[in-house]
């Protein structure tokens, strides 16, 4: 695994915008960054990332069985009690799931360490599945990369296959928060793939979802039988329409049981069950005591690096503010992100259905990866 500087393709921004990538720049700073790429060996990809991803995914699924029947664990994960039965029912009914992403600290040697699961509303999907793929093909065509360079990125193929096999109710709706351009981009990408898989897709702004007698309805008042929502379950469970979730005859993607795996509390539970597993870090529910050097504290429910407190091995404290200070916390042993040319590098490893489906790399100048962290492409070359 190494980081190699390279020249951006001339005119790539205009091209990006022409294919719907409207969030390539974040607050004036580059988000998509093609001034460098990472190179992996095939063995690194297959043995250190792909195999552990599928193994950890199965371990997480096995854990769901333990959680849904344990009041103690449901309480530890702060799942609101009125929804316990619905979570259990959603799991027992084997409601299908589409995708997830796990984040790793990995430097090319030794086992990748699982930092967390993003199993409800994972993003950076378009950048990984489409734009990174196009970058590789384009660079190969220009002779700017060695012939034979490949990429661990079957994301779009696997998503299309999943959409064609999920047998979704139709029309199938996709919803995201109106104000988020990035989330709309992600949803547009998923709708595009679903459309190619033959799904009759409709978009509805999340805030426009309606309720008639406890049934979710579209703008014309027709029942919504299938809904992809790019909006976290933990929010939905505490908003005005929370009770609608219990009564509406709607198949959700991701299904309700995914709220267990998108919760950081899954990390201590994984450690309890599989203590010593090479890809896991010691993790515990937070008892409120002072952090020891080499540990970090993060909320049960948060995203994009928000509200994380971290103490390096030499006792330096790092904190990241954010809007997620209202849930419980866990603590996890620090697996400091590796540094390449002064960049801290994090690997997001995708799962579609139950298969590993590729990686996307984020870089930041801090140990905490955030929504503004740059996305850098990668290649496989032996």
């Amino acid at each position, binding site marked *: 695994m190494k980081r190699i500087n390279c020249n951006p393709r001339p005119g790539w921004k205009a091209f990006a915008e022409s294919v719907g990538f409207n969030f390539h720049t974040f607050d004036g700073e580059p988000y998509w960054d093609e001034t460098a790429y990472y190179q992996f060996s095939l063995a690194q990809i297959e043995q250190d990332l792909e195999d552990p991803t599928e193994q950890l995914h199965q371990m997480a699924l096995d854990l769901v069985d333990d959680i849904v029947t344990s009041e103690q664990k449901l309480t530890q994960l702060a799942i609101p009690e009125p929804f316990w039965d619905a979570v259990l029912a959603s799991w027992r009914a084997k409601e299908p799931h589409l995708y997830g992403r796990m984040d790793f600290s990995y430097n090319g040697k030794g086992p990748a360490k699982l930092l967390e699961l993003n199993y409800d509303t994972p993003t950076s999907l378009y950048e990984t599945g489409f734009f990174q793929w196009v970058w590789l093909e384009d660079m190969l065509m220009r002779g700017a990369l060695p012939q034979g360079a490949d990429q661990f990125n079957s994301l779009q193929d696997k998503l299309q296959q999943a959409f064609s096999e999920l047998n979704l109710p139709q029309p199938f709706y996709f*919803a995201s928060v109106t104000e988020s351009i990035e989330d709309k981009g992600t949803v547009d990408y998923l709708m595009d793939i679903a*459309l*190619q898989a033959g799904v009759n897709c409709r978009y509805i702004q*999340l805030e426009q979802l309606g309720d*008639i007698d406890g*049934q979710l309805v579209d703008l014309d008042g*027709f029942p919504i039988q299938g809904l992809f929502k790019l909006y976290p379950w933990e929010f939905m469970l505490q*908003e005005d*329409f929370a009770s609608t979730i219990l009564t509406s005859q709607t198949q959700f993607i991701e299904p309700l049981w995914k709220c267990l795996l998108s919760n950081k509390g899954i990390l201590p539970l994984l450690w309890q069950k599989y203590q010593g597993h090479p890809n896991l870090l010691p993790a515990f529910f937070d008892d409120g005591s002072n952090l020891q050097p080499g540990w970090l504290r993060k909320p049960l429910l948060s*995203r994009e690096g928000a509200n994380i407190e971290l103490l390096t091995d030499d006792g330096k404290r790092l904190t990241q503010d954010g809007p997620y200070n209202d849930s419980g916390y866990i603590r996890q042993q620090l697996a400091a992100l590796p540094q390449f040319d002064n960049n801290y590098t994090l690997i997001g490893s995708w799962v579609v259905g139950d298969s590993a489906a590729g990686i996307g790399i984020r870089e930041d100048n801090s140990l905490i990866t955030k929504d503004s962290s740059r996305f850098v492409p990668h290649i496989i070359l032996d």
Partner: protein
Amino acid sequence: MNQQFKRSKTARLIMMVPAAGLVLAGCGEKPVEVQVFNTPDECAAYYNPPAECKAAFAEAKALHPQVAPRYANKQECETDFGIGQCESAPVVAANNTESTPQQSQQSSGFFMPMMMGFMAGQMLNRGGMASAPQQQTASATRSPVPNQPLYKSRDDRSTFRTATNTAVASQPGTTSIRPSAVQPKAGSLARRGGFGAQAARRSSSSFGG
């Protein structure tokens, strides 16, 4: 191909890449011919395929509880539609598929007029007779004129009206209408804005992660 690649074979987009878009304005909308009937038997008597008549009637019947105007009590409903012409409105529940609807039997506490006839929007597509009703997709049944229930008001028992009170015909058979005037809307008012409050409170560029 000998080599096993680790990347997608293709990655194409069909929707995100904007085509030279054609925006259809509302002006110059052409009327289309539809048929209205009291019953499926009457429909068949007008030389329509009986199976299609039954299917159109079934679709209209399924739509009826979703689009019929709703009243808080029976008296108000009967004022508009006549004594004995109203029924209790069920809770609207999701269908398994749009062609085989399942209506909840649970009463919503509201009242609605009884369905007095139906409009068949699909059968006159003589060029497109191949599409059997049970194979029609949701978009096909909704466009341009969905099969839908019709009603008759208390003071005008001969005129067929849509759920939104658009008069469409005064006798059974073929009639001509503008599609935009007869698009069904849900009869009951949806509550909206029940999701998204957390997003508004926690300002962020994304609610994924």
